[in-house]
C-alpha cells in the first residue's frame, strides 16, 4: 500500500535546544499512529512539525494529496498549507479552547469548515451540524449554545466534530483526552476509535497514556529526549519492550 505521509530524518531545534531529532516513519491511509513519551520528550514538537505548523530544522516530510501527487511540506507555501489544513487535514488540540471559536455557537463551530469548503445551503449546514453533534453525543438541541456553556469533555467532543465534519484524510491530535476525568476520557476514546474506523482516516495522536495507545493505535512510536527510541506494533512495544526507557515506561503503568 502507498504511504500517505513520509517523514525522513526530521529534526526541529529551538536554538541550541533539541525539540525532536532525526525522526523517520511512514503513515498509511486508514492508520492511527500514537506517539508516546514523557513530558518534554518532543511529542508536540514532532506533531506540529509534521503538520507544517513549525518549520523543520532538517529533514523532509512528504504528503500524498487527494489527487495522488506528492507534496514536499518543507517547501510548502502558506497558501498551500492553509488549503491542506482546510481541505485534507484536521488538527485537534489538547485544550479545546484553542481549537474552537468560543464566540460563536456550537453549530457554527461545526459548520465553519463546511462553509470554508464552499457549502452555502444553510438548511443543509444545520442538518449536518446536528447530526455531527449527535454523533459526538452532544444533544442536538444545544446547537445554538455557546461552547463556553459546555463542560470540558463536551468542548473536546465539539472540537472533534468540528474537525471531522469535512472528513479529512489526515488528522493530528495532541493529547485530546488529557485533562479530562477518566470516564469522560473513555467516552472520547471510544468515539475516536469508532470514527477513525468508520471514516477510514489516518491519524497521528500524541499521548502519554499507554492504555490509549493500546486501545487506538496499531503502531506506536516511543520518544525520549527528542529522539524516537523505539517504534513498531503497539502490542509488541507494550508486551515486549526492547529499549530500557520503554521497559521503564511499560513497567511503571498498571497492566490493563
Amino acid at each position, binding site marked *: 500500500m502507498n504511504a500517505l505521509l513520509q517523514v525522513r530524518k526530521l529534526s526541529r531545534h529551538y536554538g541550541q535546544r533539541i525539540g525532536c531529532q532525526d525522526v523517520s516513519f511512514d503513515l498509511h491511509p486508514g492508520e492511527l499512529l500514537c506517539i508516546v513519551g514523557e513530558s518534554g520528550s518532543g511529542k508536540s514538537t514532532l506533531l506540529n512539525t509534521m503538520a507544517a505548523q513549525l518549520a523543520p530544522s532538517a529533514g523532509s516530510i512528504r504528503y500524498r494529496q487527494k489527487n495522488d501527487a506528492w507534496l514536499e511540506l518543507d517547501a510548502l507555501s502558506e497558501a498551500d498549507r492553509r488549503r491542506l489544513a482546510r481541505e485534507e487535514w484536521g488538527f485537534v488540540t489538547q485544550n479545546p479552547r484553542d481549537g474552537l471559536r468560543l464566540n460563536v455557537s456550537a453549530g457554527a463551530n461545526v459548520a465553519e469548515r463546511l462553509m470554508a469548503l464552499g457549502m452555502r445551503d444553510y438548511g443543509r449546514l444545520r442538518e449536518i451540524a446536528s447530526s455531527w453533534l449527535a454523533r459526538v453525543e452532544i444533544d442536538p438541541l444545544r446547537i445554538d449554545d455557546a461552547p463556553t456553556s459546555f463542560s470540558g469533555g463536551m468542548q473536546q467532543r465539539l472540537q472533534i466534530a468540528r474537525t471531522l465534519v469535512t472528513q479529512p484524510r489526515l488528522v493530528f491530535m495532541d493529547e485530546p483526552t488529557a485533562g479530562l476525568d477518566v470516564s469522560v476520557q473513555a467516552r472520547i476514546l471510544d468515539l475516536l*476509535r469508532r470514527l477513525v474506523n468508520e471514516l477510514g482516516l489516518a491519524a497521528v495522536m500524541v499521548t502519554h497514556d499507554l492504555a490509549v495507545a493500546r486501545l487506538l493505535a496499531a503502531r506506536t512510536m516511543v520518544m525520549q529526549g527528542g529522539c524516537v527510541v523505539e517504534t513498531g506494533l503497539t502490542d509488541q512495544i507494550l508486551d515486549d519492550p526492547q529499549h530500557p526507557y520503554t521497559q521503564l515506561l511499560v513497567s511503571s503503568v498498571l497492566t490493563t
Partner: protein
Amino acid sequence: MTAALPMLELRGLSKSFELHHQHDARLKVLDSIDLSLHAGECVVLAGPSGAGKSTLLRVIYANYRISRGAVCVRHDGGWLDLAEATPHQVLDVRRRTLGYVSQFLRVIPRVPALDIVAEPLIEAGTATTEALQHAGALLHRLNVPERLWRLPPGTFSGGEQQRVNIARGLIVPRPLLLLDEPTASLDAANRAVVAELLEEARNAGSAVLGIFHDEDMRQRVATRLFPMRPLETS
C-alpha cells in the same frame, strides 16, 4: 491424501528477554525451534508450565520480537519471514492470514459484544449488516445468550468473555490459527462446540497451532503434539 500445503515454517527460532531494569538479566525462553505446520493440521504444544508455549505463539504472532531465526508464513501465495517484515506487512498478515485467540478477551470500553465479534469481519471488508448477522450466528452457536449481545462484555463471566473472544478470533476464516488455552474456563458442552469449530476450520484448509491443557480437548483436536520443555537456566 495428497501432501498438504506447508503454511508455517519455524527455523532456528530463539527468543530471549533482556530486562534492562533487573540488572540487565537475560532470560532465554526459546532456543532454535524448528517446526513445520501444514494445512489441515492441528499441532498442540505440550510441555510443563514455563516451557515457553505461550511465548512461542506470541513470537509467531509477532506480539513478541524474534531474537534469532525465521518465522515464515504463507501469505498471499508466497512466503513472508515475519522476522524481516515491516509493521505494515505484519498487520496485513494478521488481518488476512494469521489469527490469534488468547485466553482472555481484551475488552474495549463501551463496545457491545456483538460489535466486538463482528469487527474483524468488517475490517476485512464485509458489509456491516452481514458481519453482524454472522457474529450473531457464531455467538448463538457458542451459547452466548442473546440478551448479552448488545452489552459490553466488561461485566460478563469468565466463560462468557472467553466465548466472545473465540467468536472474535474465529469469525474471519484464516489459513493459520494460533490458540492459547482458549477453552480454559469453558464447560464440556461449550468445549465441544469449540472443537467442532476447529474441525470445520481444519476441513476448510486452515492450519492450527494451539495450547490445550485439558486432556480431553487435546484428544479431540490434536493431529500431532509438539513437545516443549523449559530451558536450563544458565
